[in-house]
Structures are given as structure tokens and as C-alpha cells.
């Protein structure tokens, strides 16, 4: 994880263009796409089925969504890397930028805001103004208290970051579906798994 010099470490594409333009290009011209509603409805079907299966024990539903997300994350990161060939991030700030401007863009075509950095720069928040997972969703009364409808996102981030050797905690702070003002996902970096960084990188 050594800091690499700016010129050589950036990918050819990103050194010439900004990360944003680069992601826009990948999304626009190089990514096979599918109807977003189908995505939303399929996810909705998964969540509602879980609620039924677990007899509306929403804590269990949250956990299950998280673990599904984790399983997705450990696979999804490979797709992300193959697609973008971005180099390893040398700081958490860079990581957050890649997550918001590139990862969310390339997969879901949204660009959430990053903010709320902790003073020691080890945690930040992702503000999902738009969330394709929860379009059209209104939670029933009982679910609104406990269910984190989009909890799968936390699992995905957790799994994906772990695969690039960053041990993080990811959780929902608030969700507009519960009546909050913002949808906020918190990411906290615990440590970098130095031992697991593949040999040959630095």
C-alpha cells in the first residue's frame, strides 16, 4: 500500500481524463445495461420474500440481506477491477472517491455524495440521494422501525473492500424510507490487511 507517485500509478485512461469522465465513458459506451425497474422489482421481491420467510423478524432480514450483499461483494469486486483496471487506492479519501464516482456509477448509474469525514479520516459517509434499490418502496408500519431495506448495499461494500484488503465496517445510519431526511451509509476502515496484499504489487 505504499504511496505511489502520481504519474505512473494512474491508469492510462484516468491520467488523461478525470475519474468522473472515465466512469461516464465506461458506463455509457462499454457496459451492457438492463431495465432499472426490473432490478428494483427483483430486489423488492427478494426482500418481501425474506420478510415472509422469517415471519417479519426484521433483525434477521437485515442480517440476511447483509450476508447476501457480502457474497455479492466478493464477486462484484472482480468485475469492477476487470472493468476499470484502476490501481490500488493510496488513501481512504481516494477509495471513497472511487466508490462514489466510479463504482456506483458503473453499476447503478448513480453518483452518491461523500461527506461527514471523521476527524482522524478513518470513516466517511455515503449519501444516497438516489437509490435504485428502493424506488417505488414504502415500508409498512412494522417494517419501518427495524428494517434497513437496502442493507444489501452495506454487505456489498464490506465484501468488495475486504477483497482489496481493507477491513471495514459498513452500516446504515439513516434511510429516507424510515422518514429520515437522508439516506446515509457509514464506512469505517478498521485496518488494512497488509499480509494479504498479493506479492508483486510494490
Amino acid at each position: 500500500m505504499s504511496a505511489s507517485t502520481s504519474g505512473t500509478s494512474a491508469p492510462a485512461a484516468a491520467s488523461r481524463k478525470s475519474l468522473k469522465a472515465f466512469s461516464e465513458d465506461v458506463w455509457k459506451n462499454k457496459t451492457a445495461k438492463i431495465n432499472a425497474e426490473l432490478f428494483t422489482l427483483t430486489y423488492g421481491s427478494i426482500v418481501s420474500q425474506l420478510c415472509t420467510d422469517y415471519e417479519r423478524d426484521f433483525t434477521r432480514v437485515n442480517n440476511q440481506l447483509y450476508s447476501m450483499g457480502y457474497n455479492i461483494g466478493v464477486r462484484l469486486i472482480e468485475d469492477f477491477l476487470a472493468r476499470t483496471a484502476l490501481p490500488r487506492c493510496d488513501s481512504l479519501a481516494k477509495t471513497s472517491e472511487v466508490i462514489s464516482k466510479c463504482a456506483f456509477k458503473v453499476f447503478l448509474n448513480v453518483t452518491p455524495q461523500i461527506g461527514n469525514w471523521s476527524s482522524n479520516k478513518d470513516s466517511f459517509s455515503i449519501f444516497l440521494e438516489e437509490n435504485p434499490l428502493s424506488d417505488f418502496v414504502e415500508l409498512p408500519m412494522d417494517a419501518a422501525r427495524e428494517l434497513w431495506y437496502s442493507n444489501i448495499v452495506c454487505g456489498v461494500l464490506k465484501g468488495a473492500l475486504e477483497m482489496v484488503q481493507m477491513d471495514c465496517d459498513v452500516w446504515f445510519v439513516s434511510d429516507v424510507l424510515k422518514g429520515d431526511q437522508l439516506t446515509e451509509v457509514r464506512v469505517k476502515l478498521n485496518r488494512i490487511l497488509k499480509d494479504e496484499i498479493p506479492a508483486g504489487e510494490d
Partner: protein
Amino acid sequence: MSHKIINPSTSVAQHPAPQGYDYTIGPQQTLPDLPQSMGPSSASTFASTGISTTGPSAASAASSTNLASGPSVYSSSLHPLAHTQQVSLAAYAFLFQEMVAQARNASKSVAEIELRLHRHGYHLGVRLLELLNFRSSVNASSRSAFFKTSTAGPSSTSATVSSSAPSAQLHGYHSHGSGDAAGATAAAAAAAAADDGHALAHSISHMKRRDLTMVEILQFVHSTVWTYLFGRPSDDLVKSSDRDNEFMIVDHAPLLTRFISSTNVQCDFFVCGVVEGVLDSACFPCAVTVHSVPDDKFPEKAVFVVRFESAVLEREALRA
């Protein structure tokens, strides 16, 4: 308060939103089929909403512009906050992958996995029939009129409506037929935009007729549903030569299972569920199964077999 002077009636005019059931009136059509039925009452409806909500969702106006530019009515959402029309196939593939994996962990047999996938698809299917029917009723012109005027902003809307004279004019437009008066539709739509976006209904002149025969409803699945789901119609629709109640929808390369090497589990049962959900909610009870029929040209070819229940055949015989 001008609208009260124009319309002192105590009947329909008191109800700005024609949606929903009102026991004093009885059953009402939610979507106006005939422009006459909108009469004076609807004009006052627009007037009242225009005045009461002075600042109607300015935020939604911006987002709806890009919706209007969509290539086809099926491909985009009319939801005012639906910002993204598409997500990456990869994102969907991962979600699908995990759904299958989960069904697999929770099941003891292949049939059970397929049943679970089928159930997930069914959830979607029952929602699609009305949605897609509604969308195909929104024709392009009324749609763009709706969105264009709503982007023009709330200011213009309220300006038109707040004085009593234009509202009378609105009334006048409306008693004409729906056929020519594009301006009227636009004006109506503009006013309607104030009404939370629900009132797109006002710009729909005719709801698409329901599909009543097996062939019609299958055409609907073959073209509309398939286009909605996969961006193209299915490759073929065939009637079985052996059995009267059996039809086949052919897909040369099923999109959702494109990355999944064939196993003994048929992941396309999800799509079966969708189809069955659509047909069931249209009152065509049936069973849908999928079979992979690889040939040289299309190694991933899948055939969805629809078997209608005998009641459907009997009904159709009666109608004929």
C-alpha cells in the same frame, strides 16, 4: 375562491382528485375514457389544484425532462423520482446470482429451487400487467405534452389558472373532443402536473383494451412484456400442434441466465414465474415451464411452454 363561484355544485366538483372511491357518488372511472365526462367539474378541479398548491414539485420537473426523451414508453418509468432508467447488466447478474444461490441454500431439491425462483418471478409478474397496459395507453404526444409543460415550471401554471377567465377557457377546450385539441391536452396536463403527477391520467384519452383471447395475451407477453424485461421481443411464439391449450415462447439467448452454465437447475424458472404472474392476473390461469432446447445456431435456446387450464379454453369456446 373564484372556482366556487363558477361551480357552486355540491356534487363531483367537491372532489379535486377523481381517484379513489367515494360512497356519495358510487363507482367512478379513474381514467376518463370520454372527454365529455370531464365536463365543467374537471375544469374547476384544475383551477382549484392550481391555486391551492402554488409550488408544485419543482424538483420533479427537472427529473422528468430526461424521462420524456426516452426512446420508448415501455422503457422508462413515469414515477417522478425515477432517475435512472437503466442499471448495468452486471449489477443485475450479481443480484440474480445471489438470489439463485440463496434459493439453492434454502432448498433440498432441484424442484424446490425452481419453485422459489418461480415464486420470485411471480411477484413481479402480477405487477406488470396493469403497469404495462397503462404505459402503452400513454401515447407519445400526451406524454411529451405532460412533461414539457411540467418543466415549464409551476409559475406559468398558476399564472394561467389563478385568474378566473382562463379557467373558463379551459372548460371550453375540454368540452371539445379529445381528438384535435393538443393545446387543450397540454394545458390540462400542465394543470394536472400540479396534482402530484398522478394526473397524467387526464392526458390519456383511451385506455388500451384488455386482451381477452389466449393469442392476444400471449402476443402481449411476447412483445410488450419481453421488451420491457429484456429490451427486445421474444424470438418466436408458437402454438403446439398436439394440444390446444399449449403455446411456446422461444428465446434464443435468455438474458438473465446468459452467464450461467447450464446445470440441472433451470434458472429461467424466474422468467416462467413472471409470465405466469402476468397471465394469472389477466385471468388466464396456466402453468409455465421452461426447457432448454439447444441447437447448433443457438446453444442457449430456451422454450417457455405455457399450458392454459381447461377453463380458459372453455371460456374461449363460449365467446367464439
